[in-house]
Each structure stands twice: as C-alpha cells, then as structure tokens.
C-alpha cells in the first residue's frame, strides 16, 4: 500500500515538472518615446534656433498612439490599444529617458518590426471623452475638439521669439485631428524578445523635422485639419521625423 502511494506521488510530481517545463517563455519590451530638436534631447522651455533670426521654446509635446503592435511573420501582436505620449519634460534627464511604455509577458520570438498609429483610429474617434472611464486618456475633454468632432491627435505648443532678441513674444499651438490626418507608421527591423529579458527600444521624434517648412510667425495658432501649409505639413513631416533605435 505504501509503495503504491509513493508511486502515485512520484507520478504527480513528474506531471508537475512536465507542466512547468512546458510553460511559455516570455520577455518584455520597453519603448522610450523621446523628443529631440536637431538631434539633441528636447526639454521644455529650452531655447532652440528656428528660421533665423527666430527662436523657439516648446511648452507641450504630446500625441496619441494607437494599436501599438509588434509584427510577426504572419500576424501582429498587440501591445497597447491607446496611450497619450506626453513628452513635455522640464529637465533634460527626464527628456532623455522619454515617455515609457512597458509591456511584459511577450512570447519569446524574433519579431519583424513595430507599428503604431499616430492619432486615434476611426472607431475610437467616433466616440467622445464622456464615453470613456476617467482612467482612459481619451476621457480628457481637453483632448477633444468639438468643432471637428474629433480627438486632438497631436499637440505641439510653445512660444516664438520672432525677432531673435530673446523676447518670446508670441505663443504658438498646432493641433492635429480628424480621421483624414490619422497615420500609421511601420518600422521593419528585427526585434528579438528573449526569455526573462527586457528589450529597450527608443522611438525618437525630432521636432525640428516636424516643423520643417512651417512659417510659425504667419499663423501661430492653427488647429484647422484642412489646412495644408501648417497642419498638413506636420502630418507629412511625421514619418521623416521618427527614428527607431535599439
């Protein structure tokens, strides 16, 4: 009888070990969204040269990302459906660390790339802040512009010294939104998630490139989604301003 008990216990322990061995191996990924200006980390209210003699200081840099996903050979692995990437950091150290998104329990695998939307996809954009719980970034009424019936996808705000004399005399604010200005960006590069390890990836956004070709002085406040000279230009500049660094 005792031998039978021992045998059964042995079988159970063996099964347990087998299950443990079959457990899926996982790793994690941390994305750092970092604002730059002409290749240098960008903190708020630091003075940057613009179209001479103008100078800029930024006060808010943020945008929604959506459907953040790792790409596999055959499919995508969803990481996050929506988040507000706020890179309005006061100090250079925080700016250098960037806005971080961490996702754990990812299947160990060699992924083929990363993609995400800049803005709010049409299905979510059909809703309003009141449709979301307060824990969701889309619940913020300040992130919605009723004139467009759209969330504000991207906010780029600051002030400009139009004469280059150190007097930042004019505030500027460019807000994008509406389904037509939603963009998906894709980067194809091998991303290896290893067992028990964290993969660090930087997503760098250079705001000098974002504002390339824009005459701020001509129209410092613009949130017209149909405007092509400023709002449209920001959208066109997006892909060129983004860099992925592993």
């Amino acid at each position, binding site marked *: 009888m005792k031998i039978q008990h021992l045998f059964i216990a042995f079988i159970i322990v063996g099964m347990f070990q087998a299950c443990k061995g079959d457990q899926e191996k996982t790793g994690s990924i941390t994305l750092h969204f970092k604002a730059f200006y002409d290749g240098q980390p960008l903190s708020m209210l630091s003075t940057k040269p613009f179209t001479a003699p103008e100078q800029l200081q930024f006060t808010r840099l943020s945008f929604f990302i959506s459907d953040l996903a790792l790409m596999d050979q055959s499919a995508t692995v969803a990481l996050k459906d929506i988040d507000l990437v706020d890179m309005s950091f006061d100090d250079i150290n925080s700016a250098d660390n960037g806005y971080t998104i961490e996702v754990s329990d990812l299947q160990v695998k060699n992924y083929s790339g990363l993609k995400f939307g800049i803005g709010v996809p049409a299905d979510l954009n059909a809703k*309003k*802040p*009141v449709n*979301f719980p307060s824990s969701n970034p889309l619940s913020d009424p*300040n992130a919605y512009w*009723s004139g467009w019936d759209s969330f504000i996808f991207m906010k780029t705000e*600051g*002030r400009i010294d139009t004469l280059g004399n150190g007097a930042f005399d004019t505030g500027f*604010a460019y807000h994008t939104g509406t389904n037509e200005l939603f963009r998906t960006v894709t980067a194809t590069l091998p991303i290896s998630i290893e067992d028990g390890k964290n993969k660090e990836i930087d997503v760098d956004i250079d705001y000098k490139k974002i504002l390339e070709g824009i005459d701020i002085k001509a129209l*410092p406040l613009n949130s017209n989604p149909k405007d092509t000279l400023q709002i449209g230009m920001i959208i066109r500049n997006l892909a060129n301003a983004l860099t992925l660094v592993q």
Partner: protein
Amino acid sequence: MILRLKGSHFFIAFVICIVCFARCHDSIEMPDVRNIDLAGIPYLPEPFNLEVPVNFPLFEPPADNSMTVDGIGLGRKLFYDPILSADSTISCSTCHQQAKSFTDNLPVSEGIAGKTARGSIDLINVGFEYHGMFWDGRAATLELQAIQPVENPIEMGETWDNVMMKLQRQESYRIGFRKAFGIDNSSLMTKELVAKAIAQFERTIVSGNNSKYDRFKRGEIFLDDNETNGYLMFFNLDPVLPDAQCGHCHSAPLLGTTDYFNNGLQESSDLDGFADKGLGLIDGKSSDNGKFKTPTLRNLVFTAPYMHDGRFNTLEEVMAHYTSGGKDSPNKSPFLNNLHLTESQKADVISFLLTLTDSTVLTNPAFSRPF
C-alpha cells in the same frame, strides 16, 4: 469689611459646590461620548442613483464611498454646520453658498482668522472632476479635499480631534453616522467618514440639463444671433469668425477641463517669479508654476468676482484680459495672444456665456441648508 469677607466666603463656597456638583454630575450621568454603542440603531442603506445629464462624463464615485440617501443627508448637514470650525462661525457653506452658485462672491474667501489666499471655487458638477481639487490641485479627490479646511488655521482653525468630540456629543450625529456608514460605536466616527459624507453631498450638486445652452444642445430651443456668434467663436466652429480661444480650456460639457493653465494673470520673466505658484508648488514642476485649475463656466453670472484671486469684477473685464493676451511669462498658455476681437464680438461671447446659466441650482431644496 465683615460683609465683604462674608461675601467672599459665600463665593468660595458657591464655587466649591458648583465644581463638586459638576464632577459628580460628570461621573454619574455623562456617558463617554467616544464609546457609545450604536448597534441598536437600524442600518438600512438605501443606494442613491445620481441622475447624470446626457453627454456628461461617466460618474465614478470612489468604490469605498458609494452614495446612499443617509450618507448624502449626513454630508449635507455637515456641509452647513459651523461645528467644523473652532468658534462655530465657519462652515463649508460659508464660502460655498447655494445662492451664489456655491461661491461667496468675494475676491478671496474669509475664514476664521481673516482672508484666505484665494477665492472659493464653484462646486457645480465637482463630482465629475477626476484630476484634482482646489485651484492648485492639491487634493486628489473630494474626500481628501474635505479633510483640509478644518485644520487650516485661516479657514476653520479647528483640530479634527475637537471636531470629532463635538460630533460625538450630538445624538443626531451619532445616529447620522450609524445610518450613513453602519458603524457600531461612536468611537468609529472619524474625520474620514466626515469627509466621505460631505463628498457624497457635493457629488449631488449637478447642473447639465436646465441651462439655455443645454437645451440648445438638445435641439429644443434656438440661440439668438449674438449668442450664436459667441458660441461659434467660443468653440471656433466658424472659419469666418475669429477663434476666441475659449474652448481649448473650457471644454464641453462641463465647460472646464481636467487641466491647469497659466492664463496670463501674473507677469514674470522666469518660472520662479510668480507670487502665487499654484500647481507648481504642489507637484514641484517649475513649468507648472503659475498654473491654476480651469473652473467651470456654468453659472458664471452668479460667481463674480473672477479668477483664483478674484481680480476681475465683471465678464467684460475678463474678456478684456483674455483678448489682450494677458501678462507675459515663460509658460503662459500659447492661446493667450492678442485676439483682435471687436467690442461687438466680445459682447457676443459674453452673450453666449450667459446661456450657461442654470438658476435652478440656486433654489434646489436638495442642496439647501437642512436646519
């Protein structure tokens, strides 16, 4: 001389008698109010379902402070009771008066020891604000907000120990706390429960159905020409009209936002030069210095003077400030530039602002003094 001696003897004897009587009386008849059994009082909590206006944000009271009819009733009584202050002169309602849309119409509020630093803020729809209370956001929730004024030396100047002793002494409060929170003993009456009850009451102060603006949004009525122009400029809905830049901070439907802004009230060449640092003093971010909460514009016709320091007496002064671009400082909101609005356009914006008036809040008996 003899008479005087006799008089003093009588006086001494009288005092001794009084003291002895008081001590005997105390020891024989005065129960320890801090330890009274309340279990015999029925506890039958009746959930309160708040009627939330259409298109309002989701109503999310804290999970540990579900609203009940008795909780709200207790909170309402506490809100109006000056027992919370050291000399029983100041209640929550002193600075948040129903007839003044829950403000006090003073530039800065007055407490037990003089003037406070800032004006009282309108409580309308405060239950839908999830990103900080007070002008500087120093309390995360209504419950945490309600704790603070009691021990503020200028506002109520009392200690919570004293407040709880005073509340425990009153049978009506002991019953009220039992019915609201189901506590079995008066020793379980706490400042946290006081704050929870007050927060429950404050969450019932809702306005979002009755104003002209609300009825217009529901398609029930028209706005006149001036109001319509103001509406279009407020929310920048017509490319032909100038953007009055109001809607960036005062978003519908609450007509306030979750955010804090430097709205150009203080001039400063650097971020440390603000006389009142506002949010920055709370979160330690220098870029938040000089920023204050965006209050609701609902019922603003009743809430003058305006701004956190009550510097503007009229809506015309407010419009003049915003359209001029305000005073300069590094983190002033970029939306504050000279807007070049005509006098007529400014008047139209004010006409629209007046459509946000809901005078039923001022007379709703559910919000009034209960005693």
